[in-house]
């Protein structure tokens, strides 16, 4: 148990930033969802690290990590269904070309 809390937090910060770069820079809608998954994992890592280091008897961190798992699964299912539906109608998965609602 000799790992400082800061190691986990800094690693999660780096993972979050990499995911953010992926979300902002990638063209493909599926690749954007991959970046969001990285960001959600970074958040989960923070939740679990704080649970372990602050008060392990209270299960708050793990309980909310489980909720984040559920939200991530729902987000991926709906997001990928949207991408597949769009692909079927418009024959594209490039986020820039989906500008129907842009004004």
């Amino acid at each position, binding site marked *: *148990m*000799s*790992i*400082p*809390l*800061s190691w*986990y*937090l*800094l*690693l999660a910060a*780096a*993972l*979050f*930033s*990499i*995911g953010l*770069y*992926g979300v*902002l*820079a*990638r*063209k*493909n809608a*599926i690749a954007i969802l*991959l*970046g969001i*998954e*990285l960001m959600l*994992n970074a958040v*989960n*890592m923070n939740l*679990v690290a704080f649970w*372990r280091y602050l008060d*392990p008897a209270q*299960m*708050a961190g*793990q*309980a*909310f990590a*489980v*909720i984040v798992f*559920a*939200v*991530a*699964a*729902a*987000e*991926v*299912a*709906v997001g*990928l*269904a*949207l991408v*597949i539906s769009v*692909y079927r109608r418009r*024959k*594209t*998965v*490039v986020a*820039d070309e989906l500008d129907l609602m842009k004004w």
Partner: protein
Amino acid sequence: MTVEQILFLLAGAVILVSAFLVVTVRKLMHAALWLVVTLFGVAVLYALLQANFLAVVQLVVYIGAIAILFIFAVMLTRKEMRDLGPQTRSNWWVAVLVGAAVLMGLVFVVLAIPGVERTAQVLPEGLDTVQALGVALVSPNAYVLPFEVASVLLLAALIGAVYLAGIIKK
């Protein structure tokens, strides 16, 4: 350097390298496979943090379901962007700037937390984390409401995904 620190550094290096490849590699299928590596590294960290249940859930739900879902989506939408043209937007350097700014802000905040260099205490005697998590998730004094809301959310997502991706016959 203790064994745990070495394990952490190895898992952290694997996570960072594979995450970087997820957002930069050209072929989307390879990006999805690198995501599996990243998720596995995070599962190792959960095991290091003694969150046993979450480590298993990470393997089963994230790698077993979510990553496979990504691979299916890549295969179903492949024809379009196969390796033609750049995979990043023309103003990707803005994304680099934003990412670097967020990273620096987060590092600044993390290092300002009081007691951030603390190490973990030993788990309290007789604490079964899996049992405690299960009790916390269904106890009315704890997290039964978020738990039930999550189940409703999953049901809604299931119906929504079937409706959106289902074939509409006219």
